[in-house]
């Protein structure tokens, strides 16, 4: 390529890219968009986590609509705390296992599971039951405890979180499935889909120092978005979150929300905690950034009671 051609072409590409970004919602138009499904969201109530997922994912066309043969999949639960499953501080291990099984059945080449835990990672992986469950399901459980596993990415559209170091698995895999557990959170009111991403970055302290809500929303602008969000609302920590003090904090809501829109997922989850979505600042910010839709009335939601 001649130098002149290069300059001409790169200028053109730059203008095109800049224009695309300035339109906003660029990622939604052109990024890895999940395949069209009849519903924006499927909510299931009244079964075991595994049974609710089996039913819910079927309504969305099966996991095959999201995971193709030979793809590498990352399943990212919340394993943040050294608590046993009944405290509902960490994602239900049975659910994680079932998702892994679905992915492998759909022909996934490899399914990875990890979280950047807050408590000692080996204890979290072990006591949450997720390490064993995921391995039993056929997944590869990967540590997230060392900075060496993290790579720097940039989020140019972000207001504050313009750079972050994220786990290499997020970059190395083809499909990302977000599997948060819904919990009360005494600083941000609740934690669910968007906030679960604090477990893929290395430096969480930066988020806390620099306007936590804005950073949570900013991260969601990064172009590697979840193909699917599976929200565990089976046992829900309704107070003293996100760690919980005792089992008294936990309500058995026996529900699950599966959605491609993580802002909508967080909005629905907020309702499960009897919160207005607008009471959670990061949901509002993310909605206004065009990351998703918090107005549940405008969505096509399939509700199933088992």
């Amino acid at each position, binding site marked *: 390529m001649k130098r002149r051609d290069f300059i001409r072409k790169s200028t053109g590409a730059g203008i095109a890219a800049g224009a695309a970004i300035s339109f906003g919602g660029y990622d939604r138009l052109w990024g890895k968009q999940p395949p069209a499904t009849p519903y924006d969201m499927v909510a299931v109530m009244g079964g075991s986590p595994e049974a609710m997922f089996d039913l819910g994912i079927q309504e969305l066309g099966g996991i095959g609509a999201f995971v193709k043969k030979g793809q590498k999949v990352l399943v990212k639960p919340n394993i943040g705390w050294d608590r046993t499953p009944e405290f509902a501080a960490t994602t239900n291990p049975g659910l994680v296992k079932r998702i892994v099984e679905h992915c492998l059945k759909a022909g996934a080449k490899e399914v990875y599971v990890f979280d950047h835990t807050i408590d000692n990672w080996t204890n979290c992986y072990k006591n949450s039951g997720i390490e064993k469950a995921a391995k039993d399901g056929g997944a590869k459980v990967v540590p997230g405890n060392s900075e060496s*596993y993290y790579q720097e990415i940039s989020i140019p559209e972000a207001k504050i979180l313009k750079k972050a170091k994220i786990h290499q698995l997020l970059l190395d895999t083809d499909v990302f499935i977000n599997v948060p557990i819904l919990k009360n959170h*005494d600083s941000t009111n609740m934690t669910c889909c968007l906030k679960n991403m604090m477990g893929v970055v290395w430096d969480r302290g930066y988020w806390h120092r620099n306007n936590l809500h804005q950073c949570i929303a900013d991260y969601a602008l990064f172009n590697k978005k979840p193909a699917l969000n599976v929200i565990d609302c089976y046992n829900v920590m309704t107070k003293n979150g996100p760690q919980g003090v005792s089992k008294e904090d*936990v309500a058995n809501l026996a529900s699950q929300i599966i959605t491609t829109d993580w802002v909508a997922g967080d909005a629905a989850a907020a309702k499960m905690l009897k919160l207005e979505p607008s009471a959670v600042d990061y949901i509002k910010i993310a909605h206004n950034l065009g990351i998703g839709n918090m107005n549940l009335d405008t969505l096509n939601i399939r509700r199933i009671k088992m």
Partner: protein
Amino acid sequence: MKYSSLKKIRLSFAIAFFIIVCVLFLDFRHLVPESFFEIFLWLQFVPSVIKHIGAGEAAALGFIAILILTFLSGRSYCSFLCPLGIMQDIISRAGGKIKKRFGRFGFKKPHTFLRYAILVLTVIITLTGGVYILGLLDPYGIFGRFMTYFVRPVVIIVNNFLASILGHFDIYTLVDTRKPSFKAAVYVIPAIFLLLTGIMSLMKGRLYCNTVCPVGTFLGLISKVSLFRIRIDNVKCSKCGRCAIACKSSCIDFLNMEIDNSRCVDCFNCIGTCPDNAISFGFSSPAKPRESVVQVDEKKRHFVIGSLLMFFGLSQRTLAQERNGPVPKKESTVKENKTSPVSPPGSTSIKNFTSKCTACSLCVSACPNNVLIPSFTEYGIAGIMQPHMDYHKGFCAYECTRCLEICPTGALLPLLPEAKKLTQIGRAVFIKENCIVQTERTACGACAESCPTKAVHMVPFTGNLTIPSTTDDICIGCGHCEFACPVTPYKAIFVNGNPVHAAAKKPENIKTELKHEDFPF
């Protein structure tokens, strides 16, 4: 029985034991069950003595076993069970390979005055002032510090290097592990002792053990009357002197056919080297102590008196410091007004802890969260190397009781997890002026989300914002809040140590009533 096999037995036992002790210190993935530690460390002399005297524990009778062993067979402890001794044997062997003359010892006169002076001083200071000189000179502790501060970091670096290579191939059997970082001052004492024992053993075999080590000297006193000992058959002996050259302790005076049993460490090297099969190990009545004329040296007397006074004074100063609590180290705009360091759970009080900890650093190695950090001046200068909880480096995991289950000296006593969770080792203090919610008017709550008891919780502030608040009586002082606080360099919440640990209240909790009959959306 063939006497030459004694050396082989000694070698196999010592190597196996040495490897096990190394593994206990180097187990950075914390895979060794807590119960294993006591099995292998209960015979360590100084920790066992301290545990027995301190806790009055009938179980901590390892040192009695060692005393009996020494009375039976001399200083077998030094060759079979002392990790520092075995390490020096390894270095000495290497020394002999490097330079022939480092491996040829020959008889030397004992440094009688020096070794007994050190023993007497150590005993006096320990009885009057505290364990710090004993801790400094305890061979097991010295070895523990080598492992913790020099070897373990290297092992972790190598592990991390290999882990990063394997990680590229999607293999995660080795896991990158955080290397603990300590103040430079922490390495001074271990470094001095590494040089001392390293050089002495490289060139002179067991010179350190027979000159400096108070345990060696003390056991040497008993082995003067031990039942079994090395003997030379003066009928068979041709006075070739090979045994003296092979003797790491330089204690065989072959010309006079005498063995200084107070220095003999039962290495059995002499037996194999004797071409006449004149050396054996067997029962013999204690030899009459040699009459020797002690020349009185006024300078030496002054030295002893001076040292005594100095150490006694130092011990008194330490006590005074402990009473007043250490001076806070850092100045900041809003001072972290830490009036007391935090001693680990199970230590019951700072005074109790500092009077029993020999700073062997086993807990520092074993702590999965790297919260136990050797202190510099936190406990006063005499408490140097005794670990304290540094919540800028880590936090005490709610469910973890590893350090208190493995402590060989009883400075940390075991607590059941449920009891540990209700032991208040310190209290969280909130500095509103440093808090992000106050200064930036943005949400944070890192401290409250980390708190396992919700002693730190969020209360309404302005708008949707909430700000931390603390409840003293349910706080256990685990320091997770301080660790999580993202404010730098000084935290907006810190744990002030309880000089005497207190009982925390169990957090009260009411059953949630949240319920949905139908989807709320």
